[in-house]
């Protein structure tokens, strides 16, 4: 049975005889990109607590710098 461009299996028909459209599998992600995504996510979260020793440096710039590195790594992951 064909309904609106999709093949729908009838209960009485044998499944093996009916033509079926299989959803295309997503292309596998290369391991290098997967690793870059993982490291990017870890670094992005870590940037929220990252600091350098000495006065006021628990503040923004060290956190921003690490977050920037994470963004670059993530861009490699989705390139």
């Amino acid at each position: 049975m064909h309904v609106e461009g999709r093949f729908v299996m009838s209960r009485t028909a044998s499944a093996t005889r009916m033509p079926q459209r299989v959803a295309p599998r997503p292309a596998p992600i290369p391991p290098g990109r997967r690793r870059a995504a993982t490291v990017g996510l870890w670094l992005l979260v870590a940037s929220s607590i990252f600091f350098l020793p000495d006065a006021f440096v628990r503040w923004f710039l060290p956190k921003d710098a690490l977050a920037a590195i994470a963004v670059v790594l993530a861009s490699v992951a989705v390139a």
Partner: protein
Amino acid sequence: MPRWFVAAASAALAVALLSVLISAAPGVQLWGRWPRYEGLVTLPVYFGAVWVGARLLGPAAPAASLRTLVRAIATAAVALGLVSLLEAVGARPIATDLARPGSLTGNATDQGVLGAIFCAMLILPVLRAWAEPRKAFAERAWLSTALLFAAATVIVSASRAGLLAAVTVLGILMVLEIVPSTSRRRLHLVGLTALAGMVLIGGALTVPFTRSRLLGASPLSTQSLEGRFIFWSDAADVLAERPLGVGVSGFLNANSRNSTSN
């Protein structure tokens, strides 16, 4: 990313750039002022972080990415919580002369709000971990410990904003979880929510310096609240004088001329 978001972000960027170009100190304001540098230094990183979230953790994100995110947050929550607890008992693992050092963040408000964000990100994974029979005990224990540390961070930060944020996210997340549940599980979740609320509020009222800030007994708590009203009043004065504003990072200079807080 959705086109509407890119368009809105581009429009906001254009307005910010225009406001800086017609400001009193375009050169300094373009880079942003110390310590946040919310200009060409930091704003691209903020947009980058949103982009990473959308690309790696959007609706089609693989389960492995979400698992990575939760594990990273759990680890960060434990680190933040450990330093928070050490500082709460008087230790200073990181040299500082501040009464409320802020653990691994810049100040105690950031510490409390970050703790609340970690609570928001861990509440549902912890619930799911205990509901999922195949989940390893180590994973359940690690996530639960991290959630406890995140709650402890909120409490010992003595940040009213952090506590309000934590109670709010707890309420919202649990309502979203309770509404579609079966009646038996619903009862269980209501009990858990009440227990978590009691831990947060009870903990805040038990820790002496948090209690004194919450109840307005400490002079610093009144001062920091009044300071905010003074800033808002100063901002209204600056706006009345310059209806188009003073540009990104321009408030400090404009306020030093108008300030009523001196």
